[in-house]
């Protein structure tokens, strides 16, 4: 399994992570599934609905927002392939709380934000037996060069 993501989408995820700081920011990654590749084609940043005093360590996206995102993905011919969220001042590694609330089908992209500055993103997938996460490699898609126009 590999996540393929174009640079502008990774930039959008990082911008949401930085602007959400010191709170956690989160959203959906939409795309397609091709054999062992998940190819990102859009991102949908979401509001963090967790209780405000806890948002530095927690995020929550409501089921209604999930349903709306599923509908938007369907309208674009895509599906929700993953969830992104940030860990302010904390490594880009899943926590026990992440494990308890995750589903094995999704990829989870976690971004470490240190003092408001994005440090790195890593991608994880929950094992089928829910015991732990495995790290998933991600490729930054080479952009197609802009065409010259006369």
């Amino acid at each position, binding site marked *: 399994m590999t996540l393929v993501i174009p640079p502008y989408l990774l930039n959008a995820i990082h911008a949401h992570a930085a602007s959400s700081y010191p709170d956690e920011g989160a959203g959906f990654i939409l795309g397609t599934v091709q054999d062992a590749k998940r190819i990102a084609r859009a991102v949908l940043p979401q509001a963090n609905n967790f209780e405000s005093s806890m948002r530095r360590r927690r*995020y929550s996206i409501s*089921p209604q927002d999930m349903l709306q995102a599923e509908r938007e993905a369907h309208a674009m011919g895509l599906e929700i392939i993953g969830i992104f969220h940030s860990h302010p001042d904390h490594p880009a590694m899943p926590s026990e709380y992440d494990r308890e609330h995750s589903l094995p089908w999704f990829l989870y992209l976690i971004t470490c934000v240190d003092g408001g500055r994005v440090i790195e993103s890593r991608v994880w997938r929950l094992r089928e037996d829910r015991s732990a996460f495995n790290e998933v490699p991600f490729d930054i898609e080479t952009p197609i060069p802009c065409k010259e126009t006369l």
Partner: protein
Amino acid sequence: MSLLRIPTPLRPYTQGQKQIMVEGRTVAEALQSLARQFPAIEPHLFDETGALRSYVNVFLNDEDVRTLQGSATPIGEEDRIMILPSIAGGAHER
């Protein structure tokens, strides 16, 4: 029999099916019917104690059953039932 809609992340456990016909007169019975047909879905719906996992939400005709009678909410054959995960997570506590 009622129609139960399965969200994308749970479809690997229903052989890719988006909608499943389930038996039962309540939401709890409908979920048990689903788990009987597709045992692999069970650990993702229920925790080790048999309780519904906190991220599992069930909607009956677009209404969250928590605002109705919870898992005891009665269902009819014309009702549309939908499982929707809420998405949550967060960093380690310090």
